[in-house]
């Protein structure tokens, strides 16, 4: 694989994960304090991050099969599993981690073939 597409795939992945974390944080804020300033502080950067990820993915889709490309986002399961525990203080159970690992492994298998 050439390095440039790989960098694009990686950037699309990171912006996607950041967007997910920001969205969850925004929804937590909305439950505590409604759709106010705190919600916007997390939601707006979330939207920006997701938009970047969206257009990078669209550009990649022009050159690769969807069934090859999409599963790369599967790596995000592991990344989100870890970052949600670290940054959002969500509970990290063994069962969830095993499940997440299997999903990631399956997704990588899907993308390799």
């Amino acid at each position, binding site marked *: 694989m050439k390095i440039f597409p790989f960098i694009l795939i990686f950037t699309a992945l990171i912006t996607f994960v950041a967007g997910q974390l920001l969205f969850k944080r925004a929804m937590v804020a909305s439950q505590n304090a409604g759709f106010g300033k705190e919600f916007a502080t997390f939601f707006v950067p979330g939207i920006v991050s997701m938009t970047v990820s969206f257009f990078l993915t669209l550009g990649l889709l022009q050159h690769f099969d969807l069934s090859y490309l999409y599963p790369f986002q599967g790596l995000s399961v592991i990344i989100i599993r870890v970052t949600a525990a670290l940054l959002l203080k969500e509970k990290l159970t063994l069962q969830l981690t095993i499940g997440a690992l299997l999903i990631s492994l*399956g997704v990588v298998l899907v993308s390799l073939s």
Partner: protein
Amino acid sequence: MPLRILRWLGNPWLQIALNALIVTASELFLKLGARETAHLADRWAWTGISGLNSSWTWLGIVFVILSLVSWLYVLKQVPLSIAFPLSNVVHVLVPLSCWLFLGELISPRRWCGIALVLVGLVIVAKPFARMEEKLEEKL
């Protein structure tokens, strides 16, 4: 009665399933849009912006927005570390529908991957189901 229907619609399981279907549809539309515009490659092609020349892409964007709204609704009720792994059911749905609708091929290895994802999903979903039961007991 309407209250019961609302409650049923608000079920996080149903919402996650609905979200997965919307995401799958959006991915297929975006691929159709990208396929239609792949020949337009210019200097800025890597940004994907030329994809906007296809109406499939715009339909895809509408579905992406719909999926965002339904996803936010899911996030409101379910921890990210459970909801996100479950949302990966799209990694089963997308290859399957690529095979069915776009004529892309699924190799034996890819079928194995799909099976592994499914096993992982069941493992993640189990504690979630238990958590839901506890929630219902509280109500």
